[in-house]
């Protein structure tokens, strides 16, 4: 064939190949840039669907659009691949034509670039190598400098000091492996309560404006309304009026971040809790306030604030009270949440719509209601996120309390058809992991302790007590020993996990491997959760018996027949055991094998919630009110 034909063919092929290459490159760039599933139309449709999940037609439309988008993308990708192959073939034709065109002159001498003296070439090579290696070393060192933390800290604009401070704060708030460590961290900067100067008592009828806590306004935050009845104020005229010092001091108090305190251990080393008080006279009562809406959940304390919830048919609300003054600082409503039911689920009167205790990590406060609405706000009540976990199918009403470790919110989400343990990022509501449990519905709450050599979530259900890895939800061990309706929560101490439920058993389990150490059926709780020390396990029952077990062998060491039901859980604080009966009678026992009843007295208000403790103070939620017990 004529050389000219090869030349022309080569030119034509080259032009077409170039044009095709440009087209393919543009197409590729476009494909990289577009995210078809994140299109405006799709997002809008999804938002519409979220607000109206029953609209099957809309769902179908989204499915179709989703499918079309995916199909369009892959068709385009397939076309791109075909184009590349056409390009390859063109390349082959081009190479062939060039070979044929240069057939006779392919290996004509190329221009000699090198000096005749080979030594010059070698000298240049050495120079190039030296420069090249020097450049390589410089690049390596530069990479080291740019990737160093110091450099990032100096120049990285996305890490301002505030963020670093927040991270440090996160580290401080990171829950420790056990209660003592947790408490030590939380209280490290604090002086001993005994040495702390007590705030001056200043009886006053209402808080002075200058002393009122400052609350930032937030769209989701409802400020206390001035109307009577909805704006709880310190009700007791004899209550102490806090000073600015008091407020500052309380802001640093030991946290009680969830149901039964840090890691739900129900133990506190705080001191100076009065062993007697009188709601009528105001003796040893710092303040007393009304909670706007009813709820059986317990108060939690963090950074000088008390958090709790209340709910009725109209609204579900998270409240923040000032620990020092008792003033309602803010209210966050769990409303406008996609998937939230318009009519309240049927719940037992004894459970209500707000039985679950909130949890906080000092950065976020999370609350859940019987509607399945999960709400998380910052410490000022500004909603960070909210979601509905699905309306609970629960014949008594959802009652499991939340617990937080670091940024991990643990939800025991039990329904009649499915029992789940869900871990959610408190900062954004992202689900980190979820485990479907092989248990029937329970009303128990999870605790956090060490198990199988790692931080674990212990969950009680029917029929098992199970330990899950806190980091990823892996099941560490499972002990099937429960039955019936499990309402009490587990507790742990000194490497032993205790679980107890009425009509089932009291079991002690080795937290390392799930070995059952002993079981007993002498004294079993219904709703009240047990508390354990290294040597003893204390149980309060709904039929009036309060028992102390020997933690090592399960023998009942002592039992008090008090003939009054207990739903509230016993707490060990200030070296004593504190327990409220449903009628509102407070029992204070000594710890240890003695387990003597030190004192008991009627508070005058029915109490189902478990009290919260912080330095020198006990926060009690009765059926009618919220009050703080503190030495006058």
């Amino acid at each position, binding site marked *: 064939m004529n050389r000219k034909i090869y030349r022309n063919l080569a030119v034509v092929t080259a032009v077409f190949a170039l044009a095709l290459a440009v087209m393919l490159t543009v197409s590729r760039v476009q494909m990289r840039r577009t995210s078809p599933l994140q299109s405006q139309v799709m997002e809008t449709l999804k938002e519409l669907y979220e607000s109206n999940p029953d609209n099957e037609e809309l769902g179908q439309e989204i499915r179709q659009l989703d499918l079309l988008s995916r199909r369009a993308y892959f068709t385009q990708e397939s076309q791109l691949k075909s184009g590349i192959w056409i390009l390859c073939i063109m390349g082959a034709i081009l190479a062939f034509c060039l070979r044929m065109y240069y057939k006779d002159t392919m290996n004509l001498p190329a221009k000699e670039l090198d000096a005749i003296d*080979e030594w010059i070439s070698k000298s240049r090579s050495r120079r190039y190598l030296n420069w090249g290696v020097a450049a390589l070393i410089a690049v390596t060192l530069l990479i080291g400098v740019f990737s160093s933390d110091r450099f990032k800290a100096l120049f990285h604009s996305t890490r301002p000091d505030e963020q670093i401070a927040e991270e440090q704060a996160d580290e401080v708030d990171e829950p420790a492996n056990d209660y003592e460590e947790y408490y030590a961290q939380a209280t490290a900067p604090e002086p001993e309560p005994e040495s702390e100067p007590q705030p001056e008592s200043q009886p006053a009828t209402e808080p002075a404006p200058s002393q009122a806590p400052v609350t930032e306004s937030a769209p989701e935050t409802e400020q206390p309304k001035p109307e009577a009845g909805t704006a709880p104020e310190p009700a007791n005229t004899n209550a102490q009026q806090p000073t600015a010092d008091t407020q500052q001091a309380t802001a640093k108090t030991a946290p009680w971040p969830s149901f039964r305190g840090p890691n739900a251990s129900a133990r506190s080393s705080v001191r100076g809790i009065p062993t007697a008080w009188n709601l009528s006279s105001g003796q040893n009562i710092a303040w007393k306030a009304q909670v706007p809406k009813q709820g059986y959940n317990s108060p939690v304390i963090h950074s000088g604030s008390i958090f709790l919830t209340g709910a009725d048919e109209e609204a579900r609300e998270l409240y923040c009270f000032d620990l020092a003054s008792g003033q309602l600082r803010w209210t966050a409503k769990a409303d406008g949440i996609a998937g939230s039911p318009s009519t309240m689920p049927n719940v037992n009167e004894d459970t209500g719509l707000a039985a679950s205790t909130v949890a906080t990590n000092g950065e976020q406060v999370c609350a859940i209601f019987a509607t399945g609405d999960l709400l998380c706000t910052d410490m000022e009540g500004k909603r960070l996120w909210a979601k509905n976990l699905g309306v609970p199918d629960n014949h008594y009403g959802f009652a499991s309390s939340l617990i937080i470790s670091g940024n991990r919110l643990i939800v025991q989400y039990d329904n009649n058809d499915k029992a789940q343990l869900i871990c959610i990022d408190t900062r954004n509501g992202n689900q*980190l992991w979820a485990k479907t449990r092989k248990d029937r519905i329970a009303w128990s709450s999870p605790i956090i302790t060490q198990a199988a050599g790692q931080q674990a979530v212990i969950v009680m259900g029917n029929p098992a007590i199970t330990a899950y890895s806190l*980091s990823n939800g892996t099941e560490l061990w499972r002990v099937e020993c429960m039955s019936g309706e499990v309402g009490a929560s587990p507790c742990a101490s000194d490497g032993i996990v205790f679980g107890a439920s009425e009509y089932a058993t009291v079991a002690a389990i080795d937290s390392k491997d799930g070995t059952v150490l002993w079981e007993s059926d002498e004294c079993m709780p219904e709703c009240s959760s047990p508390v354990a020390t290294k040597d003893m396990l204390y149980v309060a029952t709904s039929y009036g018996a309060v028992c102390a077990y020997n933690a090592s062998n399960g023998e009942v060491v002592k039992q008090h027949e008090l003939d009054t039901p207990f739903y509230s859980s016993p707490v060990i604080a200030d070296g004593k055991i504190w327990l409220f009966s449903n009628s509102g009678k407070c029992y204070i026992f000594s710890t240890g094998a003695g387990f003597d009843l030190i004192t008991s007295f009627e508070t005058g208000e029915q109490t189902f919630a478990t009290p919260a403790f912080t330095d020198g103070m006990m926060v009690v939620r009765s059926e009618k009110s919220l009050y703080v017990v503190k030495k006058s």
Partner: protein
Amino acid sequence: MNKFLIARFPKPDFTSGYQYPEIIHGLPYETFWSWMDVAVLIIMLSIAAWAVHKRRSRSVLFTESIISVLYFGFFRSGCVCSVGSIQNVVLALNDSSYNLPLAVLLLFLIPLVSALFFGRVFCAGVCPMGALQEIVNVRSFRLSRAVTNALGFIPWIYLAFAIMYAATRSQFIICRFDPFIGIFRMGGDIGMIVFGVILLLLSVFMGRPFCQFLCPYGALMGLVSRVSVRRVEVTAKECINCTLCHNACPVDAIRPPHANRPEETRMTGVRRILLYFVMLPLLTVGGALLMQSRSEVLAGADKDVRLMRMLEAYDAAPDEGMTPEVEAFYEMGRSIDELSERVDATLLSFRHWSLIAGGMIGLALGCRLIRLSVKRTRKTYEIEPAACVACGKCFNYCPQNKSKINTDKIKYEPQNL
């Protein structure tokens, strides 16, 4: 599916009843075909050795190149190849739990053994990557030898990195960045296909850019072929210094006669060599320490380390959302402790192997500098065994290889005189 697709096409937000098919992993490398590869390799190497040393036939080698591209390239999808087998061998030497298939070991050893006896006949037409470049080559425009000598150091760096990443079980970078695998498999990473196409376009106008400046196996082959029993020779007869072979060589491996009269005193050259000998251990240790000091950065290529850093990044800035890897980590229920343990072990391994890799680079640099400082005299055209890929282009150009000049086709035409 690549990261790009996963990010854009997550699983649908709600269920549609569609059942995700069970993931089926490909069958392991079939025994029959692996042994067939070894057999074909041996046969082709034998033919190549015969064609290079006995027959001195370029056409046989070119035919082999086509067969190699078709068999090892397109039919066997370019895997396992001798170039990539370096990593399997290194991994097997470092990790006793890794079971190195015998066929892969042979694919690694046989070309090296053949190089020990016959020079780089594997590169001549048996390696599918070299063969593909050979087929598309039209003209061989040269770079300055000063530049090619310096660029020839790159394969050693590549080899050191490949060894480090294979030994730490992080990545097989030779396979990952194989520029021709996408072409052989008719699919794959677009970026690598484009890179392969660019290399092929370069190959049209210059001799085997991949073999010269990138191939890590070529670095080993070059090292072995320096001491090969039979070196590639342009002709069995006496060289007449006609320069034709030198002009024809696409990889500039044929060195012209050289008088060795540098414009410096003998003592200057001796001092330089002595200096480089003194620097050799310093370069080795310096390279080792420098590389080790960056071991944490280098470890970023490991998937576990990367995942751990993603988890840390997510923890630091959760608002930026989860990467698909982080999401998968949580969904799969993997343990942070277990991941952390693996990462610690990997980082330790990287500290060890980056030291070795850095030392290797430093040593290779020192040796190259010494070699470039040696002066020698050549009276005829000589083939540099480490650089010669035995493509055979020079054979046809050597007048000594012509048994006789065929004058039958030459017609007497007065106008041609």
